[in-house]
């Protein structure tokens, strides 16, 4: 079928505007010193607001809190989920299918309503406004990535090599460390990155469990975005999102139709 490319170009143009336009606006604001209506672009450029933001303790503290929180809860989730993913892929035990399925079914619960129920329990336990309370609730948002990507990865490793090693008398641990793990490593790393970024930008749990004593970077961004000086929130956006975007691009081969289908059961 022959067609003129005009239709495609039209779609491409509107997609580019809709997809890139919003983010481009934020990047422009981050490097603008003066941008007043009705100028299409900033009239004065510079990084003045970057220096102002980076020198402020009310900015540094939430960013550090977020980095600590995210590292701890992502690592903790990895420690408990990766072995489980191995078990789901390689071991036979009663209830395996139902349990693996329940991780996918858990996505059907509306998140914010669930966090309300957790917040009420945590309130009694004294975990509201507590750093560790936020760690626990944020681990939940990591569990999905940490189960399905690694389970698929472990299952995708052909067992022939492992069996050969067994036949040569290698121990189970040695086979795992020297043969299985190296092959699964890229997928494990990808699941770590995806979970890390989704926790770093997580709002709901941090808000309901952490506020007002534990302020994370997204909560700071929310409060800055309501302020008159546009540049501050824009700088924070660019500062945090751009590195994440670059790292996420490295994981994109795991964000394929197949990968997504596995995670959501499509």
């Amino acid at each position, binding site marked *: *079928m022959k*067609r003129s490319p005009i239709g*495609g170009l039209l*779609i*491409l143009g509107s*997609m*580019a505007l809709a*997809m*890139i*336009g*919003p983010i481009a606006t*934020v990047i422009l604001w981050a490097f603008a010193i003066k941008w007043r209506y009705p100028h*299409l672009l900033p009239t004065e450029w510079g990084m003045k607001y970057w220096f102002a933001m980076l020198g402020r303790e009310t900015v540094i503290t939430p960013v550090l809190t977020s980095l600590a929180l995210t590292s701890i809860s992502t690592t903790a989730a990895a420690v*408990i*989920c990766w*072995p*489980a993913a191995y*078990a*789901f892929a*390689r*071991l*036979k035990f009663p209830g*395996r*299918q139902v349990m*693996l*399925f329940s991780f996918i079914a*858990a996505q*059907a*619960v509306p998140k*914010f*309503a*669930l966090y*309300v129920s*957790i*917040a*009420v*329990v945590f309130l009694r336990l004294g975990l509201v406004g507590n750093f560790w309370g936020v760690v626990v609730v944020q681990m939940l948002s990591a*569990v999905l990535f940490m189960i399905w990507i690694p389970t698929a990865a472990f*299952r995708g490793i052909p*067992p022939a090599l492992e*069996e050969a090693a*067994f036949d040569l008398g290698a121990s189970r641990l040695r086979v795992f460390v020297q043969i299985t793990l190296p092959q699964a490593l890229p997928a494990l790393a990808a699941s770590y990155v995806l979970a890390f*970024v989704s926790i770093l*930008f997580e*709002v*709901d749990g941090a808000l309901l469990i952490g*506020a007002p004593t534990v302020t994370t970077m997204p909560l700071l*961004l*929310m409060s800055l*975005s309501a302020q008159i000086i546009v540049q501050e*929130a824009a700088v924070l956006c660019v500062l945090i999102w751009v590195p994440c975007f670059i790292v*996420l691009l490295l994981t994109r081969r795991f*964000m394929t*139709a*197949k990968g*997504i*289908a*596995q995670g959501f*059961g*499509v």
Partner: protein
Amino acid sequence: MSDLAQMSAGAVRGPAKRTGHGTQAMAGLALVALPMAMLLGLILWPTMRMIGATVTLEDRIGADRYVAFFGDAYSMANLRFTLEMSLISALTALALSFGIALYLRFSAGRIATMIHALSLFPLFVPSIIISYALVRFLGPNGLFQLLLEQIGITQYRTPYLTPVGPFLAFVWENLPLPVLVLSAGLTQVSDHAVEAARDLGARPLRILWEILLPQTRRSLLIAFALIFLGILGAYTVPYMLGPAAPEMMGVYMQRTLGNLQDPDSAQVQAVVLMAIASVVGGFYIATMLKSQGAER
């Protein structure tokens, strides 16, 4: 087709069979115990407890709090607003992504590659970032308005703080998942089938309805359920972009719990939302189970 089916139903392969069944079962259960405990302790238990708490009154068990919720005009307006927003946004996202997937299916070349890449871009942009970016892009005197004025359109009215604001953000966020799944589904329709139908005189709409849609029906249903449920439980997007009233349930629950310090009402709101979600969620789970059963 579904790897999940293979993943969960397929026979265990590899070195596992070397170990005795008993040991293996114990090891397996031990390894999955902690994440399972998380699911039970952080999803099942708080939900069950919350349902119990909402019907436990000072001296008896009763549905009084639900009667109050369903009798309250403001609560009902918020609930209706949330359902309408979820439904309309999910359907729009699906329709748009179906269009994109169709275009990608029947096109090749650099333009198609770029469209594909652009449609996946939201996968890499967290809710909070796109919400803020849309405020700046679509808001009053934002870049979009400035661009329109360059070409002489001056009647722009910003969707910021109206229902259109969160609607646009939800559609934006939810494009990649269906585009990925639908374009994968559509590649399974062979060119021959389409050409044969065309040779027999079928019009494009009929080809769409009788060949392309059936092939992707299940993906469409599951994608719809996932997007709908995601929007139902959303907070950031409506908080940043939505109107002050009516509120979406996420914002309403947060205000009830955080600002009004009224956990009783917040829990009733949460249970109502979960009950509605369980209908769509049950349908999602049933569709998944059915498709796995069919492939076994």
